[in-house]
Structure formats: C-alpha cells, structure tokens
C-alpha cells in the first residue's frame, strides 16, 4: 500500500470539565486512544452517535485542537505539538467542511470575500484571487452574480456549496467533512455528496467523512471506522464492514437505520439497544460499550479490549 498521508497514533483529546471542591478536575475523554491511517485520495468514513468523539477527531487532525496525547503524523512530519504559527504551512493543505451551513459562513461577509478569505490571508495577489473565486464558484455550480450576495440569501444546499468552495480555495490535500449533509434536506444531500465525489475524482483529495448517516457513509467511503464513546471499536474496508460486521455495537447501529423500503423493513428485525449513550466523563474501566452490550462478559467490565486485526484490513476491539 501507499505511504499514508496522515497517521493517527493513539490520539487522546481530554477536556477538563468543571472543578470539584478539592480542585481535582474531572475529564471529559472525548477521544481516548484512537489510531488509524489515512491514505492519499481515499475517503475514510467515521461513524458514531453524538458524543462519540468523531467530530473531535476531525478537528484535532486539522489541529483546531491540540491533542492531549498521541501523535498525528502528516506526510512523515509530527504535527501534534506544533503551535499555531508552525502548523500553518500544513494547515493550508488541510481544510474542513462544516456541519451547519448556517453557522459556518460569516453572515456579515459577501460570498466572494468568504471564498477569498483563505487566499487573502496567504497573500495571494488580488487578481489571482478574483480569477480563482470565479473558477471555484463555477466548480460548485453557483452563479457569478451570486458573488456579492450575503449567506442568508442562499438555501442550505447553496450555502454548503459556498463552504465547499472556501475549503477548496487553497487546493487542499486533505479535507475533513464534518457531517456535511446532516443539516440538509434529503434531495439536497445527494447534490452535495455527488459534488464531493466529483471533486475528489478531479483533484485527488483525501476525505475524512464524519457522519452519523450509515447509508451515506457506505455510499461515499472506501474504509469506515466506527466510534463509540471516544474509542474506535471497528475499522474495515467498506464492503467488508457492511457485510461482515463483528462488533455488537456496529451491528446494533447498522440495524437501527430505518430502511426506506416497506417490504424490506417488514422482513428485517431491528436490534434495539437498551439505555442511553453514557457520558465520557471519568468513564469506568473496561469496554465502553459494556453497559449496553447484549454479550457482555465479566472481562468486558475490567479491561479495555485491544484493537486486533481479525482479517487483513479488518480491525476489531472486542473481547468476543
């Protein structure tokens, strides 16, 4: 296989929460020891429910956060502890598409200045910026006369495409797509997904596609990682994962997706998990999923299962 573009090695991201009277800070372990590699021009899907840490992983990779542990290695360079200034050269190769197309565009800026901002900050000459903005706007299917309008005048799908144009401005190698379609209408989601796929085909970017929508992740990803409570529980090539899922959580998650086909839905039996997702604040030892797992054994409550390769490229963290 190729050299990985990004290697993530037991990434940890703890946030302090509150202060108890003895001054000991509780820790929210948003991400706790996640490892995976990203290869050039692939789409890696990261799925999980809210609070599982998938968004935090995405933000840590583009160094919006400084990880509290583990390493992030970008093309052989360790960028884990670089400060804001030193990380900048790497960051212009890494971009992000955000979840909420209403919150990710500054409402006081025109579309052209939003798309131009990354270039203006990197001292690209004004004439080049103008040409590139026009090119980008065409690339994402918007019109030139939209350039002087403000974000609130656009529909959700159009705004998301403005966000994509901004992310593409510096021709990134790596784009974190943080739930880019979850706030959009169904008919618009497909537009955005198709556009992301076309752009990848043209420009050969690597995507980290963070989402809770398992069918979209299956559609767009080459490899998929499933996260639960800050841990990666299963990771495999997309077809392998969807046809041969091993982790009880992956199975439950997959079967919980409502099927848009009444006959098929009537035939399929849903695995309904009991209880709620626990909070990752000072979690107990052992497997994070133990409290909701149907197959829970005593060992599951004592030791965290290690990630092991059960078949080539298929990793699983489970005592079963």
């Amino acid at each position, binding site marked *: 296989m190729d050299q990985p573009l990004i290697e993530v090695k037991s990434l940890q991201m703890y946030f302090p929460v509150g202060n108890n009277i003895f001054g000991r800070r509780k820790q929210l372990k948003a991400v706790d020891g996640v490892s995976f590699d990203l290869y050039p021009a692939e789409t890696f899907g990261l799925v999980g429910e809210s609070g599982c840490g998938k968004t935090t992983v995405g933000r840590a990779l583009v160094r*919006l956060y400084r990880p509290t542990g583990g390493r992030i290695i970008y093309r052989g360079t360790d960028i884990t502890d670089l400060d804001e200034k030193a990380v900048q050269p790497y960051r212009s190769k890494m971009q992000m598409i955000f979840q909420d197309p209403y919150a*990710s565009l*500054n409402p*006081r800026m025109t579309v052209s200045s939003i798309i131009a*901002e990354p270039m203006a*900050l990197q001292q690209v000459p004004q004439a080049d910026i103008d040409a590139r903005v026009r090119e980008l706007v065409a690339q994402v299917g918007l019109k030139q006369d939209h350039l002087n309008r403000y974000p609130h005048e656009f529909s959700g799908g159009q705004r998301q495409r403005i966000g994509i144009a901004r992310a593409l401005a510096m021709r990134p190698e790596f784009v974190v797509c943080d739930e880019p379609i979850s706030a959009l209408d169904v008919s618009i989601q497909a537009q955005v997904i198709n556009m992301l796929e076309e752009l990848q085909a043209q420009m050969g970017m690597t995507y980290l596609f963070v989402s809770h929508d398992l069918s979209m992740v299956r559609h767009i990803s080459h490899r998929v990682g499933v996260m639960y409570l800050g841990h990666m529980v299963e990771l495999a090539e997309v077809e392998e994962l969807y046809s041969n899922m091993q982790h009880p959580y992956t199975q439950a998650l997959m079967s919980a997706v409502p099927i848009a086909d009444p006959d098929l839905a009537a035939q399929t039996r849903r695995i309904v998990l009991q209880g709620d997702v626990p909070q990752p604040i000072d979690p107990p030892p052992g497997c994070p999923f133990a409290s909701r797992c149907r197959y829970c054994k005593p060992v599951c409550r004592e030791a965290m299962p290690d990630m092991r390769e059960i078949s080539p490229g298929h990793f699983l963290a489970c005592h079963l």
Partner: protein
Amino acid sequence: MSVQILDNNAYAALPEDMFVIGIDESHAEDIPRPSTTYWHDVWQRFRRDRLAVIGLVVIVIMTLMCIIIPMVSPYTYDGSDYMNMNAGPSLQHPCGTDQLGRDQFIRIMYGARISLTIGFVAAAINFLIGVLYGGLSGYLGGRVDMVMMRIVDILSSLPSLLYIVLIMLIFGSNMGSVILALCFTSWIGTARVVRSEVMHLKHSEYVLAGRLAGANTWHLLIQHLIPNAMGPIIVSTAFLIPGAIFSEAFLSFLGIGIQAPRASWGSLANAAIPVMQMYPHLMLFPVIAICVTMFSFNFIGDGLRDALDPRLKK
C-alpha cells in the same frame, strides 16, 4: 397571487405543445428575492419605529442648530445685553436673558454643543476601549480573561463621585476632564457585552474556518467576531450617550463640571436656582433641553435594540 387551476374542459383542451418535456435548468439556482444586507434590514426595521425616527430627527436638528446658530447669531455666550437683563422670552431673545443680560437661547445652544460633544466623544471612547478590551478578554479566554475581568471588577467597585472629583481637581474643570471622568469606568459595560458576545461567537464554525484559513487573533476579531457582535455593541453604546450627557449636566449642576462663563445645561440650571421663583424661564428652558435630548436618545436606543435584535422585542 392566486393559484392557477383550469376547469376540466379547458384542461383537456390544452394544446399538444404544452406537453413537451423541455428542461431549462438555467434558473434552478436563481434567487428570486432582491439582495439585501443586514444593515439594510436593520434600517428597514428602525424606520418603522416612529418614536425612534422622531428621536433621530430631533437629535439631527439639535446638532445642526448648535453648530450653525452660534456662527450666525449676533449674540455670544458671554456677551451681555445690559438693556435686557432677566428679560422674559421675546422675539429678540427667544428664551429670555439671564441676570447679566446674556442671551439664554445662545447659551443653551453652546450648552448643546458641550452636551452633544461630551455624549458622542464619551461614547466613541467607550466604544473603542470596550470593544478592544472585551474582545481580547473574550477571545483569549482562560487566565488572561480571568485577570482582565478582575481588573474590571476592581475598577467598577470604585465610588465614582470620588474619582470624578479628584480628576476635576487635578485637571481642572473643563470639557476634557469631564470626558476623562466619564470615560474612566463607563466602558466597562460595553466591554462586558463584547466579551460575552465574543465568547459565544468564538466557537462558531465560521471562526473555526477562519482559523483554518490561517487567520491570527487580530484578523479573527476584526473580520469575524466584532462585526457579528456589532448589534449589542451599538445598543449598549447608544444608551451610553444619554448617560454621559446626563452625568455632565449633573456634575455641572453640582458645580464641579463646566464653569461659568461657559454654559452647559447643568450649569445653566444651577445658575437659575436662586432666581427660580422670579424668573422660572431660566430654569425651564435648560431643563426642557435636557429632557428632550434624553428622550430622543433613549427612543433611538430602544429603536436600535429592536431593529438590531428583533428577538428582544416585546
């Protein structure tokens, strides 16, 4: 705009060429609404608030009057008309004259100059300091924020009359020291507003996008945070103006503000106290001027608040 529906016969009789599939996607991305900006919308909302518009008109007229009238008037603020001392309102002296025969109207106009200047300058200084201080404190957060906010707490716990009197003693009773005294702590309100807005906004996705684009703190504040916090900032500044004007009038009324022969609304009212029962007009006109100005600025502030943040409207 009614929905177009045909009756059955007319529908059946529609010609064949109405039923040819021809896709025209060139308009699929059109935006039918005219382009508007945030500030345009704000102005539209502000315009509908009648009181606020009246307030604005009054302030504009008063500003123009206090600039122009002293330039063209035959009287000056300290020139006496010994033929008419303590005169009531007349054509010659619309607001009468005082004990020294000085034209009351022109003195009120000079007072307006002082009041409005103090109001606007104090607001501008407050705005600058408050936005910078609050913006930095809110954006940097953590320990820096802790220290900056404790400094603010200490400043705001000082008894205001104490340091105002001290400033007046040290720098003398002139407009500059009144402004200094008024600005000493009143930016704190603005700073707190800005800080809380910035703390709230700094986690928004467009700020993260700005950081990814390589923006430094300064750029983020100027380009992303402050423009989006502008609504509450403007509202808090708008209410600072009448506060500053009133404080100046109050200080001058107590005799520690603007000193005679210079006229301010507060010192005019002060000077009128001993003769109030015989010449009530000397008290009446400055007080009317203060009231009208206060009301106007407060109406403008209310209008701005409703226009900038429609959610707050009752």
